[in-house]
């Protein structure tokens, strides 16, 4: 192995370098100048994106511990874009919170640590590496969930997050140990999962349950709503798109490369959990009054839809999942962006507080409307195309009953998404949210999200590009 081999990991190395640079900046800044790290971090993240898109490396490192290929790079790029959007959204919140003045750079450092974990998780070629990076992904986020520790709800979210992720890691490790007992290796390439083997099937079930916690698939979703509600909006948006996205991607990789032999088993598991996740997520979302809890249950329902793409185990399905996650990132981050802006300005987070928002903040309401339309899957916006390909993947696998339930659920979801739109545009309010002037970064973030929502569906080469690159795994 020579030095040049390390450049296979150029994305991760660049992120580590970024973390170190930010640490140096943090050390050199005085207490009253801490907010200056915000533009530094935002602009320094752009080269990371560029490096990611220029990255074409293929190969493996450290005895197959680390694998890179175009599909994995594509997954990392999708998530990097999401993190960039999160960074743009948080700037305003970080600046205005008086209690956080000393801890601004910690926010960036922890998110970047988690992102490094995300990148290594996608590139892992060995379950040891997989587990290490999974922990690196979730522990900084648990710290961030308790970022506003002087608020009881935030502290509660932090402790719930760390306990549930410790619990899920325990289940996952048990699954991995069963897989190791059955095959005698932890290396993806050397693992031969056989369809008849009970130990390996049990190992898969536990492994899947552990990952299901991270994706918040029913019946492992109970932590989601409380953590999403208590954590700061920025952390919630990171949790709902990046943590969920990476777990979905890793599940896709592992299902196809490792568990191809026991497809009959995992198809049934995913079939049942997909139905449960969609239905329960939707039914609970209808009852929510708090917008963050509402979006939490909506994200659970979306996770159910994502499972539709995985159930067939085909390349077409994988492409649909990648494509949907990209669109989901744009739409969910747009929704959370609006929630974040409004909460910063007026500290309101109930759905009835959004009554009459259109009168005072027409542009914010339009962005929110597009985001909700996209989440619901209404044709002109990208969410429709994302859902369409997911449904098509399920149809290709011949699962028409599942498809029917999914379509019914899409209709139910339409109802509660439109309730929020109705609140903003039709309902009247004596004291609507006052007019808000958001700062440059938040505005840029919302514009990028809106552009993504509108454009991603229509530019077909994005989909073609993903289709061409999804054959790697």
């Amino acid at each position, binding site marked *: 192995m020579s*030095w040049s081999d390390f450049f296979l990991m150029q994305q991760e190395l660049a992120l580590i370098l970024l973390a*170190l640079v930010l*640490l*140096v900046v*943090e*050390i050199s800044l005085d207490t009253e100048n801490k907010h200056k790290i915000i533009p530094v971090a935002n602009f320094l993240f752009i080269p990371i994106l560029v490096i990611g898109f220029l990255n074409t490396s293929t190969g493996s490192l450290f005895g197959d511990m680390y694998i890179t290929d175009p599909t994995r790079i594509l997954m990392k790029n999708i998530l990097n874009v999401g993190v960039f959007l999160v960074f743009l959204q948080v700037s305003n919140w970080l600046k205005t919170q008086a209690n956080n003045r000393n801890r601004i750079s910690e926010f960036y450092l922890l998110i970047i640590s988690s992102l490094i974990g995300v990148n290594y998780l996608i590139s892992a070629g060995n379950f040891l590496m997989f587990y290490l990076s999974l922990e690196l992904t979730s522990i900084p986020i648990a710290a961030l969930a308790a970022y506003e520790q002087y608020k009881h709800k935030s502290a509660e979210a932090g402790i719930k997050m760390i306990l549930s992720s410790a619990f899920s890691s325990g289940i996952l490790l048990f699954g991995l140990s069963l897989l190791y007992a*059955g095959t005698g290796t932890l290396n993806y390439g050397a693992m031969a999962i056989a369809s008849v083997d*009970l*130990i390996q099937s*049990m190992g898969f079930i536990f492994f899947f349950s552990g990952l299901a916690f991270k994706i918040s698939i029913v019946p492992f979703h109970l932590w989601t709503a409380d953590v999403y509600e208590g954590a700061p909006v920025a952390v919630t948006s990171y949790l709902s798109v990046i943590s969920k996205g990476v777990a979905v991607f890793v599940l896709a990789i592992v299902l196809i490369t490792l568990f191809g032999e026991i497809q009959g088993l995992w198809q049934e598991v995913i079939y049942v959990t997909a139905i449960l996740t969609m239905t329960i997520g939707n039914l609970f979302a209808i009852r929510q009054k708090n917008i963050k809890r509402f979006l939490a249950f909506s994200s659970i329902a979306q996770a159910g839809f994502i499972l539709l793409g995985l159930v067939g185990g085909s390349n077409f399905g994988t492409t649909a999942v990648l494509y949907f996650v990209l669109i989901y990132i744009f739409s969910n981050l747009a929704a959370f962006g609006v929630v974040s802006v409004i909460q910063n300005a007026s500290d309101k987070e109930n759905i009835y507080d959004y009554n009459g928002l259109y009168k005072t903040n027409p542009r914010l309401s339009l962005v929110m409307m597009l985001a909700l339309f996209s989440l619901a899957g209404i044709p002109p916006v990208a969410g429709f195309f994302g859902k369409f390909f997911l449904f098509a993947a399920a149809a290709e696998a011949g699962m028409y009953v599942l498809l029917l339930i999914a379509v019914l659920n899409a209709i139910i979801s339409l109802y509660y998404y439109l309730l929020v739109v109705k609140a903003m545009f039709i309902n009247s309010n004596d004291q609507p949210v006052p007019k808000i002037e958001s700062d440059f970064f938040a505005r840029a973030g919302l514009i990028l999200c809106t552009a993504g929502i509108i454009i991603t569906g229509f530019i077909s080469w994005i989909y073609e590009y993903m289709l061409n690159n999804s054959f790697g795994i």
Partner: protein
Amino acid sequence: MSTEGLILFFIAGVLMVGGGIIVSNLVAPRSTNAQKLDPYECGIPTIGPSWMQFRVGYYLFAIMFLIFDVETVFIFPWAVVMKQVGMTAFIEILIFFVILGLGLLYAWKKKALRWE
């Protein structure tokens, strides 16, 4: 391994752990005296209740100590193979030191080393 194997594995696991506890309870001789309740090799008997609250500062110091403790553990094997690996090993350990040093500098700047 088949289903029977898995069941046997489970039963054997339960028996090994549970059996050990039960057998040692039945077989082991019992003798109780006052000395047995004294702290063993851990200093003198405590004065007052030991369930008191500690300053959180202790933990900060303990963590800082732990980091550098682990660093030493890492450096020992490095020192053993350093001659064979040569310049590469030297540069790699320098990178490691720089990262650790930055961490220490950060803790220093955050006044984690100050006892107030």
